[in-house]
């Protein structure tokens, strides 16, 4: 087990090195020039040269790369934003709880909606409830979440002079207010993500409900609730759980637009702003931090198999 962990950790190193090289190169391959972007129409030659030197962009790219990576490895310094001149790590840490809270609530709402509608739809196949459930799922799949978000923000402001856009309050300050602020964006995002969950849940459950052991349960005279919830659901959940896992990056990626529309000061917005402003160090470092988290999470999931299924052994 210990050897396995060390082996996996060793494998993570080249992955992260590759990520760092790719994000560093991609930013510099992007068309445009961050220095001119910063001074816009005031790009007089001396101004541009001075700013380029100040940001260290006048040195060869490989020097800039090693300085960035060296800062992280030797001093734990992820660098500072070109625009805000603030340390990236501090900014990331202060914003991460917002995105985490939004992602957790989104996952929760999409799973609850998707699984419940999926169960009803499968256990009442070809009934009115099933058709409604399927129509809702197709609708949820078809509506882009950012479109739905705009409607949810705009329509109540027009008809009721109300809008679900609030001033963000951290969970630690006021948990209830925090929930009130996050619930609408999480539901908007969650509903659109619930579509695929509902579709997979329904088809998996239909498949399981036709299996021999379920027929046996029926013949034993077990009530429907026990058969569906206790015997069928657990097995039908396996592909659903895999799907939720696959959707994880979408929860982070989608938070960019949701955070902008609902004015939530999260990592998504931080990253998006940086990308728009060609803020190289921010884009590089946030990418690297998230990539490290994904690698770490994957490792944790792999290790957790041993506890979930004792038949799995590590070599």
């Amino acid at each position, binding site marked *: 087990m210990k050897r396995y962990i060390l082996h996996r950790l060793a494998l993570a190193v080249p992955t992260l090195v590759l990520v760092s090289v790719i994000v560093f190169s991609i930013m510099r391959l992007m*068309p445009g020039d961050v220095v001119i972007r910063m001074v816009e129409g005031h790009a007089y030659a001396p101004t541009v040269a001075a700013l380029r030197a100040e940001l260290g962009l006048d040195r060869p790219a490989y020097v800039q790369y090693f300085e960035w990576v060296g800062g992280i490895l030797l001093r734990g310094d992820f660098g500072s934003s070109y*625009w805000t001149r603030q340390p990236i790590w501090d900014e990331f840490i202060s914003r991460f709880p917002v995105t985490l809270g939004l992602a957790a609530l989104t996952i929760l709402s999409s799973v609850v909606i998707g699984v419940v509608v999926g169960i009803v739809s499968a256990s009442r196949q070809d009934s009115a409830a099933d058709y409604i459930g399927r129509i809702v799922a197709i609708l949820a799949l078809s509506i882009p979440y950012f479109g739905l978000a705009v409607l949810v923000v705009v329509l109540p402001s027009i008809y009721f002079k109300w809008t679900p856009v609030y001033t963000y309050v951290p969970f630690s300050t006021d948990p209830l207010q925090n929930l009130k602020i996050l619930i609408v964006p999480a539901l908007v995002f969650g509903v659109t993500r619930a579509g695929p969950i509902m579709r997979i849940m329904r088809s998996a459950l239909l498949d399981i409900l036709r299996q021999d052991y379920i027929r046996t349960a029926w013949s034993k005279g077990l009530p429907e609730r026990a058969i569906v919830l206790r015997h069928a659901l657990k097995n039908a959940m396996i592909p659903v759980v895999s799907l939720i896992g696959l959707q994880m990056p979408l929860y982070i990626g989608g938070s960019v637009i949701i955070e902008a529309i609902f004015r939530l000061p999260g990592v998504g*917005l931080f990253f998006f702003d940086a990308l728009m*402003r060609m803020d190289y160090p921010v884009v590089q470092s946030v990418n690297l931090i998230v990539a490290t988290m994904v690698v770490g999470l994957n490792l944790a999931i792999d290790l957790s198999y041993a506890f979930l299924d004792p038949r799995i052994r590590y070599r």
Partner: protein
Amino acid sequence: MGPRPLPAVYALILLVAVVLILPPGDAAAQTPKRGGVLRIADREAPNLDPHLAVSFLTHSWSSMVYSQLVRFAYGPEQKHSADFTIVPDLAEKWKYESPTTVVFTLRKGVKFHNKPPVNGREVTADDVKYSVERFMAKSGFRSRLEPVQAIDVVDRHTVRMTLKEPYAPLLNHLANAAYVVILPREVEDKLKDFNRPEAMIGSGPFMVKSYQKGVQIAFERNPDYFVKGLPYLDGVVIEITPDSTARLALLRSGKVDLGHMWGYLVPEEAKSLKQTNPEMVMAPTLTIGQGMIYMRTDQPPFNDIRVRRAIALSIDRKAWNESLFYGEGCTDAGPVPCALKEWKLDASQIDAAKAKYLVGYDPAEAKRLLAEAGHRNGLTVPMFHWPGYAPPWRTFYDLAGDNLGKIGVNVEFKPEEYGKYISTTYLGKYEKMAMGPITPFTEVDDWLFGAFYPEQPNNRSHVADAELGKMLLAQRREMDPKKRLALVHDIQRYLADKAYYVYMPHSPQYITHAPRVKGMKFHDGFGLGPRLMFTWLDQ
């Protein structure tokens, strides 16, 4: 018939009637009231150091906190929204000792905000020297003060600025809130830099109360502000809202008083808001700005004046103004923008034969000119642009393409990603033709010298005209305002038929706010603080 009433009796009856008809308390309602917090939804400033950023967001925030040597006339002082009359700020007076030496006398007893490490000490000449030198060393706008050779402290309340040559735009640049604001030196020494909320210590009308990154910044009234009785507001809160749809929703739902720091709404947004919120106060205003087609006048085919003139005559500005701006725009938009009234020479004051290349529409003549220039069968040109500008810019590109198509100029649209556009096309690095807006400047020199003098980053049409060059230099060196105005008018006359740029009609902005906001006059300078120090809430 009885005796006729005397005229005095008529007058008395009329007076009583007028008094009865007038709404009660109208005069009282216009008397500014103290108190209340104004709420604004807008984007976040990328940086808090006023000398390090070129963003209007940063400068709007910093103008709340910092004072300047001189400033523009705002609020009740201003004659119109682009009134760039220079009025005292920290400097109570200034005097040109010679065309290249100006001496500023500071007000005595003006204090910085009472916050550590400055602790309410007096603003002195050393602070002015430090700030001007810091601006000239660090700012992206530093070229504005390039002609300044030295700034010397004469005594505690007097500074002398020495210039390399006479430079007429100096005071306008000093009054622009985006440029030299006065900072206390010890903040940089003790707090490391100005890019942090606790370092925003100035002598302006408001002080930073709190700043939650990505959420909101709150300002409170400076109780020791040197203009007694101002500001009227107890505070201003800017709710950081990156998305324009959300900003409008916040305005509609009454959560904010302004949906933009300057109150901007484009006509489409304003008309829709007026339907749902008829109580909103709206004023269509021609702001300083310009949209234009620019061309590589140093290369074929646009080095041929006939081709440029054909382009100029192809734009149906009247129809454009009617269809897109409800007839409220300005069709005579360049080279000096419509709003810059003091400097603008209207096309109607220019020889009609020349002025037609600024405002005229004559597709038949345009086709004739193209044929004369050897393009009888028309020509195909690219149009580089950034499609992301706020609506209705996307329609502008289409309309221009359509107008040009009618004279046989086939436009190939070349949309660019912003990063590329701003570092290339925007600065004149493109092939043949491009289209887009330009930064709104407060000084006429930027619209003329900046746009037409060789090697200037905003000379997007690559104009290199020796005769014009002499005129451009002369106007910026002329210290007599009347003579300078005459030179600026001469330049506009000279430029009228050159068609170096082809100007599009300019859209009005609807300056919009909640009805409780009073005394907020729109101004085209970058100072949000001086604008809001005259603003009050009727509540």
